[in-house]
C-alpha cells in the first residue's frame, strides 16, 4: 500500500472518529460557521469539539508549514483530506479571512517575524482578521484609494475611510491598503499594512444589506498610529501583495458555490413541484434549467481541478483566477435563482422557525454580491480580455 493510501485510510478513520455528526450536515447560514477571534463564541458544543480537534492536528490550515501552526501536508495529502472531508460532508472547522487571504500573502511576502507573529494565531483561530481594501471612491477602481499613511518617526499616522469591510465590527486586526506616497503614480505609492482594530482612532459602522444581514461595515481611521514594522513587503510596493492576495480571494469566492452545497437541486424541486409517472419533474422548464446548471457545475469543478494541475505543471496563466472567479460567481447566482424557483412559496418566508430565519432567501440575496465583491464580473472580464487575450486599449 502506498504512503498516500495509508494516509487516506488513516485520515478517513480519524475523521470518522472525530467529526461530530452535527458537523456533517450542510450549513444553513454563515452563522453556522466558527470564525475565531478574541471574542469568539461557539454556537454549539459539537462546533467547539470539531474546531479544537482539527486545530490540534494543524488541520485548520492543513497545507501550511508545521512551524506556523499548519498541518504540513503536501499537495496530494491535502487533496486526500479535502476529498475525505467532503465525502462525509464535514464542515470547515474554522472560517477565516486570515486563512483564505492574509495567510497566503504573508507566507509569500511577510518577513520571518511577521510570519511567526501572525500565522500561528490565524491557524489557532485566536485573531480574526478583516480586509481594508475598498473605499467609497475606490471600489472596482481600487488603485484610486485615498487612505493616507504619513510618516512620523518609526510610525505611520493613518487617516481615511474604508467601506465594505466584511465583519470589521467583529475583527481583531485588519490588513489594509494605504497610500504612503501621494506623489507617486496610482499603483506605485500604496503599502500593505497590518494593525490592531483596537487601536485608538479606529471605528466601524455596520451597513444593512438587502439580505437583512450586515456582514459589511464602513470603517474609519482617525490618526491611527501604526509601527512601520507592520508593513508587509516593500513600502510603496503594496500593490504586488494586494494583487497576490486578490487572486486567493477570487479563488475563494469562485469556490463558494461548492461550500454551500446542500440537497441536490432535483430533489428540492421534486418536493415542491412534484414528478410525473416516469419520475421526471412536472415543471419541464425548471428541469431543463437544473440539468443545464448541473452540466455547467460539473464542468466548473473539472476546470477548478485542472487549474490546480496546470499551476503545478507550471502552465497556468496568472490571470486565470479572474476567469474562474467570473464563472464561479455567475454560476452560484444561477444556483440560488434555481433554488428560489424550485422552492416556490416555501422559499419566500423571511422570519420563522420553519424557514430557519429565512435562510434560503437571505442566501439568495447574499449571492448577488458574489459578482461584485473581490472585483466585479465586468472587471474580471476586462482582466481576461487584456491580460490573457491581449486585446488592445488601456
Amino acid at each position, binding site marked *: 500500500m502506498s504512503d498516500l493510501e495509508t494516509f487516506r485510510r488513516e485520515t478517513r478513520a480519524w475523521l470518522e472518529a472525530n467529526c461530530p455528526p452535527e458537523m456533517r450536515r450542510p450549513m444553513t447560514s454563515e452563522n453556522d460557521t466558527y470564525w475565531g477571534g478574541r471574542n469568539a463564541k461557539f454556537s454549539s458544543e459539537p462546533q467547539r469539539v470539531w474546531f479544537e480537534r482539527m486545530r490540534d492536528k494543524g488541520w485548520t490550515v492543513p497545507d501550511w508549514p508545521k512551524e506556523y501552526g499548519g498541518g504540513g501536508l503536501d499537495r496530494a495529502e491535502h487533496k486526500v483530506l479535502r476529498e475525505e472531508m467532503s465525502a462525509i460532508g464535514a464542515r470547515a472547522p474554522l472560517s477565516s479571512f486570515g486563512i483564505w487571504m492574509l495567510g497566503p500573502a504573508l507566507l509569500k511576502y511577510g518577513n520571518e517575524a511577521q510570519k511567526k507573529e501572525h500565522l500561528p494565531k490565524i491557524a489557532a483561530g485566536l485573531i480574526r482578521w478583516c480586509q481594508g481594501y475598498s473605499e467609497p471612491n475606490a471600489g472596482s477602481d481600487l488603485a484610486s484609494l485615498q487612505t493616507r499613511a504619513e510618516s512620523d518617526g518609526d510610525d505611520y499616522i493613518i487617516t481615511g475611510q474604508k467601506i465594505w469591510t466584511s465583519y470589521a465590527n467583529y475583527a481583531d486586526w485588519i490588513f489594509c491598503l494605504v497610500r504612503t506616497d501621494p506623489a507617486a503614480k496610482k499603483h506605485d505609492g500604496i503599502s500593505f499594512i497590518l494593525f490592531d482594530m483596537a487601536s485608538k482612532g479606529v471605528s466601524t459602522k455596520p451597513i444593512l444589506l438587502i439580505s437583512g444581514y450586515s456582514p459589511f461595515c464602513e470603517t474609519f481611521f482617525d490618526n491611527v498610529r501604526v509601527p512601520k514594522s507592520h508593513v508587509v513587503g516593500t513600502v510603496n510596493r503594496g500593490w504586488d501583495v494586494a494583487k497576490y492576495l486578490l487572486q486567493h480571494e477570487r479563488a475563494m469566492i469562485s469556490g463558494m458555490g461548492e461550500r454551500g452545497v446542500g440537497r441536490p437541486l432535483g430533489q428540492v424541486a421534486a418536493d415542491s413541484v412534484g414528478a410525473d409517472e416516469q419520475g421526471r419533474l412536472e415543471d419541464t422548464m425548471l428541469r431543463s434549467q437544473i440539468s443545464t446548471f448541473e452540466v455547467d457545475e460539473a464542468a466548473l469543478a473539472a476546470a477548478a481541478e485542472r487549474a490546480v494541475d496546470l499551476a503545478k505543471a507550471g*502552465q497556468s496563466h496568472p490571470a486565470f483566477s479572474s476567469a474562474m472567479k*467570473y464563472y464561479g460567481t455567475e454560476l452560484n447566482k444561477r444556483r440560488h435563482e434555481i433554488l428560489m424557483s424550485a422552492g416556490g412559496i416555501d422559499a419566500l418566508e423571511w422570519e420563522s422557525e420553519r424557514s430557519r430565519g429565512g435562510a434560503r432567501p437571505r442566501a439568495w440575496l447574499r449571492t448577488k454580491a458574489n459578482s461584485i465583491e473581490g472585483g466585479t464580473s465586468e472587471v474580471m472580464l476586462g482582466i481576461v480580455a487584456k491580460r490573457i487575450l491581449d486585446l488592445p486599449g488601456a
Partner: protein
Amino acid sequence: MALVLTEEQSMLRDSARGLISDKAPVSHLRSLRDSKDATGFSRELWKAFAEMGFSGLLVPENFGGSGLGCVEAGVVMEEIGRTLMPSPFLSTAVLAASALSRGGSEAQKSAHLPRIADGSLLAALAIDEGAKHRPLQTNLQAVRSGNGFKLNGAKALVVDGHTADLLIVAGRTGGVAGERGGLTLFLVDPKAKGVAIERTVMVDAHNAARIEFANVEVDADHVLGEVDQGAALLDGVLNIGRGAVASEMVGLSEEVFGRTVTYLKERKQFGKLIGEFQALQHRAAQLYIDIEITRAAVLKALQALDGDFERAGAAVAVAKARAGTTATLAVQEGVQMHGGMGMTDQFDIGFFMKRARVCQELFGDSNYHADQLARMKGY
C-alpha cells in the same frame, strides 16, 4: 490523474497538428467540396495517418495497433477540429475500432482490427433512424433466418457510410423501439445483396449516407457481441464517440475563437481597433472562459473513459452537452464579430459554423445529454 496532457500526449498532439495543418488546412475541405469529390476525403492523407499510427490508435497492440486510450483519440480529434479535416478517423479509428475491440470475437478482431490499424479497412457505424439521436429507438428488424438473420429497415446519418468496407449496424432482434433489451449489433458487408447506400451531401461537406436494408442476409458469425444484449456495448462505443466529437468541438471552438481574436486586433472601425470596444472585449473574454471550462470537462470525460469506463457516463454527458453549447456560441460569435465578411463563402468561418451544427447532432445534442444527466440523477 492530473487534468493536463502528459508529455507523450503533448508530443502526439504536436505531430498530429504538424501533419494536419500542413496537409489538410481548411482549404483542403473547401477543394473537396468544390470539386464534388466522390470519396469526400483524401485516401493519400489517410495512408499518411496510418503510417503515423493514428488509424490504429485504439486498436490493441496484439492486433497491430498502438493500444492507446480515449485521451489520445481526443487529442487527434481536437486537431481534426482545428482544420475540419475530413477523414474516416471518427468512423473507423474511433467507433469501429472500439466496437470491434470491445465486442468482437477473436475471429472478428483478427479479421478487421489489423486492417483498421494499417489503414486498409474503412468502417461505419449505422445507428440512428430518425431525425434526432435516439439509439434505443432502433427499429431496423433483424429476424432469424436460416443460420443467421435477415435485416430490414433504414439508417440515416451514417458517417462515412458510402466509403465503408464494413458496416456496423444496430438492429432489433427482440423488444420494441424504446427498449434496451433486444438490440443486436451486426457486421454487414456494404456490397451484400439488398444494401442500398445513398451518399447525402451535408451542410458541412463531410461524408454521410442514408442506407436501406431490404432482406439483407447476415450470417450468425457476423453478430458483434451477444444477440439481444447489444445496448451495453453500444452505450460504451457511443460514449467513446461522444468524447471524441466533444474533443473535435473543443478544437473547432478554439480555432474559431483564435481567428476571431486575431480579427479583433486587426480590424478598424470608427477610427479604432474593434478589439478596443468593451462590448466586444467582454464577449471575447466570456467565450474564452467558456472554452477553457469546456476543455477541462472534455478532458475529464476522456480520462474517465480510460479509467473507470462503466462510470464515465455522467462525465461524458457533461462533456458532450458543454462542448455542443460552447461550439455553438463560438461559431455564432465568430461570424458576428467578423461582420459581413463572416457571412461570405470565401471566408473560412462559415465552414466552422456548419461543422459545429453537425457535431451537435452527432450522438446526441446538448439537450439530449442534459436530459441524460437529469435521468442519471433521478429527477
